[in-house]
Each structure stands twice: as C-alpha cells, then as structure tokens.
C-alpha cells in the first residue's frame, strides 16, 4: 500500500473530493458536516482475473447439497406443514380472497405471470411479484431490500394495506377462531400459542423448500457434455465473458443479492427509498436469480419485458444512461448470434417441476 501523499495536484483532488462530499451531504439533507474526511483516490493494482479452466468456472455453478435453515428458525416437519397451510390460505388476507400463493404461485415459477402484482381490491401494484424460488439462499428480501429476513418478509405483504390488507391483530383473532390451526401451531411451536413470530417462521420454513428443479444446465455442470446445446455452451461463455452477466448474476442461483440500476426507463426509485444518499441506489433493484427463468416472464421489476430476447436486447443497449445507472451497465456490442446464444443458455436454467399438492385448509 503506497503512502497517502497530499501535495500539488493531489491537494486539489483532495479539495474536490471534500467538495463532492459536502455536495453529497447537502443533497442528502444532512444538517451538519461533522463527517469523516475523504482523501484523494490512489490507484492500486488489481489482480488480473484468474484464467481458470472451464471446469473450475463450472465449479462456481454447482448446486448446493442442502437447504440452509437459519439457527434462529431451524427446520421441523411441523413448521413446514403449518407454513404450507398458511401460505395457501386465502383467509390470511383482509378480503379472504388472496393467499401468499396468489402472487407467488408455483405454477408460474413461484410468481404470478403478471407484469405487475395485484393487491387488495384487485388493484395493480407498482412492481412485479418477485419469485420466492430459492429464497432459502436469499440475503435480503423484496425488490428494494426492505425486509432483512424471510421471516420478516413473510409478514410484510400480509399486513400491507395495498397487498393483503390484513392487520396482524385481526389475523391472530381469525386464526384463533379456527380450531385446527390451534392444533397446527401447538405442534409447530409448543406452548407459544398463535403469534406473529410463529406465522413468519412457519411461512418462511415452507418458502425455504421452494427450490428450483434439476435443470439441463445442472446436468452439463455435472459432466454431461451433451446436456445443453453448443449454442447454450457459447452463451455460458458469453455470460461469463463479453456480456458480463456474471458480475451481478453470481453463482448457482445467479444473483449477488445486491442492488443495481440497470437503466430501465420507469421512475420507481427502488432501493433509493432506503439508501438515497448513495446516488447509485436511486432506481436500483435487487438482482433476481435466474433459475427457472423460462417460467417467470414477464421480466424486470416492472414487468416491462415479455421475453428473454427483449431482456438481452436491453442489456446490449445499456438502457438509460444516468448518474444512478450501475457502472457495470454499458453497451455490449453483441452480435445477433451472440444474443441468440445467451438466450439459449438462459433457457437451460429451468428445471423439472414437481406437482405441488395444495393443502386442505383447516376449518
């Protein structure tokens, strides 16, 4: 690490950096400027990307062997049974007409197949219903990251007036009036009764079992060289190379669980509602995973793109250039063939799907 030297041009750079910092604080509505002081940038060497073999690259995409359950909410069959029952129960909504599964339906890749979600009173919501597939591996939840855990996320839409519109006290009263639910809660949470925390833990436990099926891509990663087409294999190379998709769609579930403005033209501020002080968070949304992507159209947080071809076209152009747009988003210069290869690769990520049995609801 070189010493930090402040002289000559660097001194002016430091002044500019300080000014920039003040401007940022002013923009953020900061009342004072008692803040840490930012020095001038220093150029440091960055190790060249490791040119590993195709096999070592594949290792980054191998499926995990087990579902991770947090120590604060370990798996039990009783919680799973209760959680699944709650997940499909329309009585969790104020209207009695919507369940979690209404918007996060396994038949549509655990989404709803609509451009925008539909909430209480059949009113359109402002964003597309995100999938819950592979949520067990999630770090932070909702398009804007407002839920820090799956347990908290589960309780959010139930209570949101525009979504399921069910005040928690009313929900507890309703569940307590259903004898069979008392039995299910007692089995899952002995001696605790019916509580908001129990509802969240049970639904989260069920959601963690919504796993994408074994896909042709997995067979290819596993060594079956013919499991995906030559075009898809070229697409995989592009995904990790020229198209740079893997800078955000990382690992076996194809997400960095992070926030990026990808230059879509809508006005939704996304993560900016929570971290607006960071310019790059204005109009940033959480990177969705790509598993089962063929079943999850339309795409993007605003549901504005009907096909994977349209998505690839968007990334090729780079979208709307603005200060908040991620520095990773820029025109790619893909050829027609390369775009087709990328789409062919993306279509190998959808797995076999099991029939999901819907539970009989308690009365």
């Amino acid at each position: 690490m070189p010493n930090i030297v402040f002289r000559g041009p660097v001194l002016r750079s430091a002044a500019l950096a300080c000014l920039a910092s003040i401007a940022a604080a002013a923009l953020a509505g900061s009342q004072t400027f008692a803040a840490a002081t930012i020095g001038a940038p220093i150029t440091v060497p960055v190790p060249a990307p490791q040119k590993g073999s195709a096999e070592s690259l594949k290792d980054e995409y191998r499926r995990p062997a087990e579902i991770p359950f947090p120590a604060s909410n370990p798996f039990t069959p009783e919680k799973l049974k209760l959680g699944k029952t709650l997940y499909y129960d329309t009585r969790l909504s104020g209207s009695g007409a919507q369940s979690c599964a209404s918007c996060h339906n396994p038949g549509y890749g655990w989404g709803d197949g609509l451009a925008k979600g539909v909430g209480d009173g059949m009113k359109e919501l402002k964003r597309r219903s995100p999938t819950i597939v592979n949520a067990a591996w999630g770090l932070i939840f909702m398009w804007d990251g407002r839920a820090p855990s799956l347990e908290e996320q589960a309780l959010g839409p139930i209570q949101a007036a525009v979504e399921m519109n069910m005040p928690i006290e009313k929900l507890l009263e309703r569940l307590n009036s259903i004898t069979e639910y008392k039995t299910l809660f007692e089995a899952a949470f002995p001696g605790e009764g019916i509580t908001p925390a129990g509802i969240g833990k049970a639904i989260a436990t069920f959601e963690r079992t919504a796993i994408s099926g074994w896909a042709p891509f997995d067979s290819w990663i596993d060594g079956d060289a013919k499991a995906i087409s030559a075009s898809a294999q070229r697409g995989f190379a592009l995904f990790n190379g020229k198209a740079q998709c893997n800078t955000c769609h990382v690992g076996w579930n194809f997400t960095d669980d992070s926030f990026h403005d990808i230059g879509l033209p809508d006005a939704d501020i996304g993560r900016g509602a929570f971290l607006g002080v960071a310019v790059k968070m204005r109009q940033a949304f959480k990177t969705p995973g790509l598993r089962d992507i063929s079943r999850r159209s339309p795409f993007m947080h605003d549901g504005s793109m009907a096909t994977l071809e349209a998505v690839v076209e968007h990334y090729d152009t780079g979208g709307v250039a603005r200060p908040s747009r991620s520095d990773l988003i820029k025109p790619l210069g893909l050829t027609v063939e390369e775009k087709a290869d990328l789409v062919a690769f993306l279509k190998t990520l959808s797995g076999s799907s099991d029939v999901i049995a819907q539970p009989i609801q308690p009365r």
Partner: protein
Amino acid sequence: MKRFSTFCYAFAVFGGVSAVAAVAADQSVHQKGRVFSVEALKVKTGEAVVFVNDDTVPHNVMSTSAGNEFNLGSVAPGTAMPVKFDKAGSVQVICAIHPRMKMTVTVD
C-alpha cells in the same frame, strides 16, 4: 457558512497543511470477492483507513454513523480511497451496492 468553515478545517487537516505532508496508511480494508477483508478494526481519532477496491466490480463504501458520515460513491476496481475519522465512536461501514459487505471501525 458552517458547512464552509468546517470544510476549510477538514481540508486543512486532511489535505495537508504543508505541501510535503504525508499520511501513512497503516490500516487497509480490502474488498476482493465482494467482502470486506476485516469485520472490525480500531483506529485513533484523526487516523485514516484506506478502503481498497481490489475486486472486479465497483463498490460504494459509505457510513451514516453520526459524526463520521462518508460516502465514497461508486469506486472502480483498482482504486483505493483513504477516509480519516475525526470523531470517537463506532462507525458502521457498508457497501451500498452489496449488502453482505458490513464492517465496523471503532474510533478511539
């Protein structure tokens, strides 16, 4: 006016009172692999921590901890940014882009 005078103070101290002033960077936080290289470190009041983006993607290191707020903005790979902490206390540092990246700087 207060903002301006505070700026002048900060600039005088951190920018170097003389043209030959140099500040040794004895604490660095690396970001390779979308993680901070340390979860916690301690510095003395007035000391700098250098946030080194030795990763392959941009990072936006920042803090909203009172008295030690800073926001480096989007920092490209291959760039290190020194930040000097002038107020004692615990500083929660995050990358705005990557929520897995969290650490604490304790300023004594």
